[in-house]
């Protein structure tokens, strides 16, 4: 297999991680909404915590993206 085609395939495989991070981010916001709907008065104080969870979940997707970019453009 040529290097270029292997690179493209590898980048595509690495992009799977972005989808996994999408599930994670959705889970963070979904769980927050679930809790917030049960106890709306406590929700306001927890948005910062939610965004920390969001940042942590999102980061792994961004790592996958960075890996895909490195595979795609590294020589």
């Amino acid at each position, binding site marked *: 297999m040529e290097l270029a085609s292997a690179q493209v395939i590898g980048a595509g495989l690495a992009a799977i991680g972005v989808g996994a991070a999408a599930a994670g981010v959705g889970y963070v916001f979904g769980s927050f909404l679930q809790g917030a709907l049960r106890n709306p008065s406590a929700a306001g104080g927890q948005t*910062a915590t939610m*965004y*920390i969870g969001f*940042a942590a979940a999102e*980061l792994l997707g*961004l*790592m996958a993206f*960075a890996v895909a970019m490195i595979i795609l453009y590294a020589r």
Partner: protein
Amino acid sequence: MAAAAKIDPMHQFAIAPIAGEELVASPFMFTNSALWMLIVTAAIVVFMWGGTRRQLVPGRWQAAVEVVTGFVGNITRQNIGPEGRAFLPWVFTAFMFILFSNWIGALPLAIVGPHPFTVTSQFTVTGVLSLTSFAIVLAVGFWKHGLHFFSLFVPHGTPFILKILIAPIEFISFLVRPFSLGLRPFVAMFAGHILLEVFGNFVVQGLNAGIDGSPLGWAIAVLCFVFVIGVNALELLVGAIQAFVFALLTALYIKDAVHLH
């Protein structure tokens, strides 16, 4: 038949010199990135100056500035505590710079002329921002606690065997912080603009195909146009969230340095 141009989504991130081409490859070259950083700074200065006239009853502009300052002030106060006021200038600066460059970069100015350059789509820029945050954390931590700062890596009340395991993990996660902090706003802007570029190209190619007599081309162009508008709206949201997350995480890291868990 218009040949389908090859989509080149990376072209928009190319840094090109605007003036002083004779200085190519020297650090003093004035590039489009530098120009748009100046524009972002000017926009922030104008925004803040216009809103700090200290009226007792704030007008619209001052109210907008007060919302932003109050918002960032809340982040530092809630996360760091009363000591957080000392770090408000840096957190606010980083927040405003990321927010304004994200939003100015998303402006559709290209319709009338200049192509806006998203400064935060370069890892050098966000990386320097995150390194500054990291440097502040280190300086504050060592200044306040001396070598006791290293107890940050050992959580309270863990059994000894766990401590041996946890300390290296905490250390690595601490070292990854500047990287992850800078990677986040960079990739968010980078990926978003690639998406916009690709689907913007689909609009143009669809229109070309439609003019050539293919009804499917019109449908694709319209669909992609609606999609691009939606993604642009999402980009505004993501730009604001990334600025907020950067400010929040900076405040959290500074809290670690100030209070050591």
